[in-house]
């Protein structure tokens, strides 16, 4: 723990960060190490290239979308705070922390987790998943070769299913409703090792 504390002191605004994200000091230190490992040129922030050079990520069909999520606020660099905040979406919900910080919504709340997923589709940030946006994601995710026509009909059907107001697009509310039965806390959490 001593080493964790000492390396914690090197990270600027670590307290603030932990307060925002709910990560423990050990987590923050751990992530900081990872951040530095990714930041090969030691420039203090991560660029797209840094993400793209992660080997395991190369085969992920929605790699670009996820990397894009880190750059959602625009700009071409991700500093440590943004990095941790994005990852905080995936922190499992723990009840103790929830009680403590009930003033504002924690980053890993259900809505925020969903919003993260939503924004992977919504590339133009208009708050709606249009048919073409859905189609793009579908195309990348279907493993087996399917024809465009099939893809289109799947996309149409998906939109029909979720679309409640008939605008042929899925808004965030509709998105949330259609996933009401899914246990997002389970599906959008990973266990952060200490």
């Amino acid at each position, binding site marked *: 723990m001593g080493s964790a504390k000492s390396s914690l002191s090197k990270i600027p605004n670590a307290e603030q960060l932990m307060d925002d994200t709910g990560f423990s000091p050990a987590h923050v230190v751990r992530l900081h190490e*990872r951040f530095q*490992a990714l930041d090969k040129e030691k420039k203090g922030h991560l660029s797209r290239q840094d993400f793209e050079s992660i080997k395991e990520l190369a085969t992920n069909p929605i790699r670009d979308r996820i990397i894009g999520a880190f750059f959602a606020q625009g700009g071409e660099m991700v500093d440590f705070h943004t990095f941790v905040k994005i990852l905080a979406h995936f922190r499992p919900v723990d009840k103790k922390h929830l009680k403590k910080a009930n003033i504002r919504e924690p980053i890993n709340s259900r809505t925020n987790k969903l919003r993260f997923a939503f924004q992977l589709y919504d590339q133009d940030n208009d708050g709606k998943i249009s048919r073409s946006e859905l189609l793009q994601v579908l195309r990348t995710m279907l493993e087996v070769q399917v024809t465009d026509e099939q893809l289109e009909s799947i996309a149409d*059907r998906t939109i029909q299913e979720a679309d409640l107001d008939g605008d042929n697009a899925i808004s965030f509310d509709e998105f949330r409703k259609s996933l009401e039965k899914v246990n997002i806390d389970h599906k959008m959490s990973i266990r952060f090792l200490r």
Partner: protein
Amino acid sequence: MKPLRIHVPALLLVAFVSKAWTVPMNNSGTSYMTTTGTAHSGSNTAGNHTANNGGHEAAVTTLPIVTWKWHHVELPYLMTVWVLVCWLIKLVLHLNERLTIEIPESAMLILIGFGLGGIIWGADKVQTFALKPITFFLFLLPQIILDAGYFMPNKLFFSNMGAILTFAVIGTVWNAVTVGLSLYGVYLGGAMGNLDIDLLQFMLFGSLLSAVDPVAVLAVFEEVHVNEVLFILVFGESLLNDGVTVVLYNVCDAFVSLGADKINAVEIIKGIVSFLVVAFGGALVGVVFAILLSLLTRCTKNIQIIEPGFIFILSYLSYLTAEMLSLSSILAITFCGVCCQRYVNANMAESSVTTVRYAMKVFANGSETIIFVFLGISAIDPNIWVWNTAFILLTIVFVLVYRIIGVFALTWLLNRFRLIPIEIIDQVIMSYGGLRGGVAYVLAFMLDENRIKEKNLMISTTLIVVYFTVVLQGVTMKPLVKWLKVKTASKSDLCLMEKLQNRAFDHILIAIEDISGQIGHNYMREKWNKFEMRFIRPLLMKTSARKSQDQLFSVFHQLNLKDAISYVAEGERRGSLAFIRSENDANLVIKKKFGADFSDIMSDINSDISDTESYSNIPMPSTQNGVPSICLDIEEEMKKKNFNGAKDIDTHRLLQMHLYKARKQHRHRYSRREIGVNKDENEVQEIFQRTMRSRLESFKSAKMGVGQNKKLKPHKKDQVRNLCLLLPTAYAYNMQWVKLTCLFLQVSNGNLDFVGNSAGGIENPAFFPDAPPQTPPWSTNTQAENGVAPSQWAQLRIPWSPSNFHRLAPLRISTRSTDSFLLADRATTEEEQPPQDQPSGMKK
């Protein structure tokens, strides 16, 4: 009376049990009787159930016409009757629905078993029938376990594997040791009076009671619908702890025979090694057989009818092999089911998959019923009952208490590592769900009474524990689940968005794990999936099956099928296909073109058709074209034409009257090799005749047809065909009916698929008085010789349809159509579709 061995379920596994056929026919040939002289004695023996015909041996003086051969059939007969009785009990139980909701079936079956046992004992004064270990382990248990493994939700099972193994191994050992030791302690304290049991025997007893029983757990938990994680924990534990139980039992049994003084560290280490070998060896046997099975189903395409049989045979073999090698047979068959399910389901034909699914349920459910009934029957035997209040009560208390302690301690440990902690309420249910069942009873039954003096006390205690857990805990389980508000399983409908999103979540999680540098579950799963995809699938899965494996697409496919089925069902309910549906209906309309999918269907249909030669005559919708020329959606078509409601009703009535109801019937075919659906030529003819007749009638009644040709009045059946030859245009009208009926045929052939809409619907001018007056078709039949333009109806192809239609093919060449109305409407269609058949002249 000689004791009867009951091979009740051998019937279920007819294929496996050669025994049934080798029943010694000891008195066949000795008991020929003449009908005249022995009617009386025949009924006597029947009454006695003993069939002692020895006395008639000397009576063979004349040719016997009918003989009484009870011994010849005794064993299989009794088995069958017992199966029947057990199943009838189940049937009676389910007559009262409320009863089965309130009280779990397993408990009811045991209680009824008591009653049956009482009757048997009252009649015989001895318990003739009891659950024998051989019967239980070789014939009753495998099917249940196979069913459990085959329908195991794999992803859930493997992602909770750590927890399941912890409970199965550590939990079971804990149960065995603590129960045994505590009982011994109390015994030393003197609370049980004078018993001839030593420590090792107590440990043996503890070990046979340690295992949570898969049959009992499944029976109770299936009815309460708890959330899936809780279910898989309890159920997975009950399946996997078998290896532990068997080993513990064997080790303790061996120790008992060795005697306490010969046990040393070496023996104990051997015991542990034996555990590892038994458990992993069993699982390995299962995996090997699963691979064999998957490979085998790759090439059973040509013998589809026995394809499902391989599943049962090979998995049963895996069970027997493991049993033979004294490995854990339950683990073997579990893993066989778990590992093969995916590949087998992909490799086999759809119908075989369904067959396996149902047959497995029949076997499993059937033998489960038998087990519980016999657990009840076995109790009614005064010979086994030895009562020792302290021993029995303390056993129950210890079993319960140590289960609770074990579960809570282990979950506490596990929760430190789990992403989703197991909640307190779930832990309560888990501890309460520690049901003991048939396995424990049979193990107790197998004890050696020469070495274990108090065998009967152990049997009766085990029985009490089984009844206590299955009946009492089983009955109270549901109220408890409700009272504690345990999260129950939510029924989820098929939902594309959900499936899509689940997949997206998977990818997201993997990516995030990669980015944050964690090596977690998702990472490992991804690696495994990749490996499976690259190496295992090509080996075990058919090439064709591999291609259509995308789950998302199959969900989509299923949804569409469901829509189509409900669409037709709805239509039929209303008596016609023309039910109301608004255009902007959210009711997911099937109007998409299915490019590649279409070709799949076509190949399906093609394979259905034996007579492919004639098939080539029928133009088939090409894949480019996509849209078949059938209109499912008559309503929509109507709207296009701006018809008003009155005509709709007209049409509805008409459809109702004249739509041919395709008969789907399995005719009795004397072929063991295939089950075919009726493809009767007469059916087509009948459709044809009916529609012809109705056409003629409507022409008669239509205003424009007034004063028509009297010759046409009689429409006897034999004339109808002539008529249609004479009246090509009339026939052309008919095409729409044929089309509709084709649609039905198609549906009835099981090839219900996406039937798009383009042309079609009801467009017969005869029904639309507003339509421009036309010349009645038959007045133009002289023009037939000119054979100019085929009518548009003739040009619009017959949709793909059973080959029977080929007879009609030449008829589609027709004369110039007379409905200008349609011609005007269809001008474009005609240009697009030049006549596909050359006029071959009219047949007269």
